[in-house]
């Protein structure tokens, strides 16, 4: 149904970008008429482009249906360089003093991972790499379990131990959702594993971040009851600081 992009509609693209800028400048609640008047774009064209931008979720309509605001997807265009509040960094520092493994704090922005406080002594894997293979790492599995969905394409086999069977992954995700703990042993890097727990907003229980410990794969496989308890305590402390 979609024809290949010919790039022959520069005016439409330009107008769409102008509309985005206009909504950003005018602020929350600006109406289609106001946008059309401000940019001198014919009303019908403005309405069509606005609907297109709403359909793609770069803009949202406010509950009165007449006003517009920037949508969350805009954030993908200019990723905010997130840094954790000082209080949260303190929590992470205390955690690192008590464990010998790498401790990382990762914020979720839709399906992207942002390291807000990576362990300086144990540099983590690249965030985009983790987000690309969510099935094979603890932080990704937390996110998948939260949205109750599997990745679109085939599951890449990163190591011999990676779970690539969709049903097997699905039952693993059910466990994650039930226990609130995602464990992965040698599925991303053959030698490493990780334990990850969710950091949830205190009000609505939304998943805002993941707290992960990475260590040798065989050690991660052990029950680690005390370690997990420690991880959960710190995640609970982080929740009000991040949400």
């Amino acid at each position: 149904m979609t024809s290949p992009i010919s790039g022959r509609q520069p005016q439409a693209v330009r107008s769409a970008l102008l509309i985005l800028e206009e909504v950003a400048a005018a602020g929350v609640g600006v109406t289609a008429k106001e946008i059309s008047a401000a940019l001198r774009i014919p009303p019908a064209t403005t309405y069509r482009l606005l609907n297109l931008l709403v359909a793609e979720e770069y803009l949202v309509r406010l509950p009165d249906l007449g006003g517009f605001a920037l949508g969350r997807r805009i954030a993908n265009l200019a990723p905010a360089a997130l840094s954790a509040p000082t209080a949260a960094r303190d929590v992470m520092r205390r955690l690192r003093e008590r464990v010998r493994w790498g401790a990382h704090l990762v914020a979720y922005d839709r399906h992207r991972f942002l390291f807000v406080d990576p362990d300086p002594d144990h540099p983590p894997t690249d965030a985009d790499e983790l987000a690309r293979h969510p099935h094979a790492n603890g932080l990704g599995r937390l996110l998948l379990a939260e949205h109750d969905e599997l990745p679109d394409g085939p599951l890449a086999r990163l190591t011999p131990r990676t779970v690539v069977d969709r049903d097997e992954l699905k039952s693993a995700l059910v466990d994650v959702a039930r226990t609130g703990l995602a464990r992965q042993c040698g599925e991303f890097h053959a030698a490493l594993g990780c334990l990850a727990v969710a950091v949830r907003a205190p009000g609505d229980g939304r998943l805002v971040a993941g707290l992960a410990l990475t260590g040798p794969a065989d050690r991660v496989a052990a029950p680690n009851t005390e370690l997990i308890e420690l991880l959960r305590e710190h995640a609970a402390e982080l929740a009000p600081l991040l949400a």
Partner: protein
Amino acid sequence: MTRIPVLRSRSPVAGLRRRSLRPPGVFAQSVATTAPAGAMASTPLLVIAAAGNGALWSFAIAAVLVGLVAACITVFARRMAAAGGLYSFTAQGLGPGGAYACAVAMVVGYGMLVAVTFAGASWYGGALVARLAGGSDALAAGAGVALVVVLAVTVAVCAVRGVRLAGRVMLVIEAVSIGLILVVLVALALTTAPGTPAPVGAGPGPGGLDLGGIAVGVLPALAAFIGFDSAASLGVEARRPFASIPRAITATAAVAAVLYLVATLVQLATPGGAGRATSPTSGVPATVGDLSWASVLMDIGIVASFGACALAAVNTLVRVLFSLAREGVAPAALGRTHRRHLTPAVAVWVTVPVPAAVVVVGTAAGVAPATVFGGLVAVATLGFLAAYLLVCLAAPRFLARIGELTGGVVVVSVLASAALVATVVVVVVHASTGLLITLAGLLVVGVGGWFVLRRRRGPALQGMGVYDETTTADVLAAGPR
């Protein structure tokens, strides 16, 4: 210039699996409700009976009208996502009165459509079983009743299990049955066509073009399209609803139009061909000797298509009831969702037995399947036409309210409304006494319900038309990051 927006942190229709259904699932919902497989096998015969060689014109007129209605529906579908579909849309343009009328029309339309599919599956399936087993009418009726019970249970389970599963099931069933029926139609054309050149509306065929006949043929043609709007009730659950739902609605209307035109062409080219192939419409007591591979395939395709349509219509019906319950207009229990599957499970278990019982009782009472089926189709079609009319009237008023009215929409709305009013008038004028009594009864119940609700739940009526509002989480920098 800017207003301070009041954003909720939770959508009023929370509880459904929000923004998770992919475009194929949304498309499947609309296609399955329209059930083009069953319609393309049976409707062209009805239209040809009315319009003769003008049948193509009847379908073309119906397709244009459906296109206009689709344009009015997408005015809303591009701007809001609702679980109640058309009636939630109407509320934005016509207020509570229009919304209530549209909700009643939808409940009648979709409720009857579920009954139609049960009746159709029982009729075609029962006849098929009886023919294969060489049995009598009694066996056909017994098999038909058994089929209704099995179908009702299956549909209810699938509807509770979730719209994602339902979408996958429906898409496969519909694709297979359309394929089966296309194969049969093309085979018929190849085996019968060579002597007779197709008189495609051109030249003086037998009877020539009859304008009155064409007009009468528009109604059954229109009935073949009903349900193409049903994706609109998945607004809450669809991923990127403002893109996928308008696309699903227009694509369904377009695909159905093409399939019907092709089916009509083939059946015009092979007079009596398709009539021979579908057992129940031929009315001939078939013996095992009559059994041709084509008719069996076609009947299986039709029964499967009815099954998918039942599931799709239930999906929409329960979401309409769910939405009404969330507004406080319907009992609150209907607004409860399944804890794990996140579907309006209570509404499913309450609604599915009703149409199943209607069909079972009708069959047990000895009413001819064709009578049950025909009566239900007529009422369902009128329900849908009324809902379409209201949404077409609402579109320009809604756009004027939010300040996005354009001339094109006004023209489309006026044309569509006028054509729909004309169609409804024609139907009512030609209606049988039974249908008129049914309509009058529904009208009395609907109007009475309005007055009762206004006294008991006035505020709920005023608040009709809840939809999946933008929440703080959707707006950049409005909520907690």
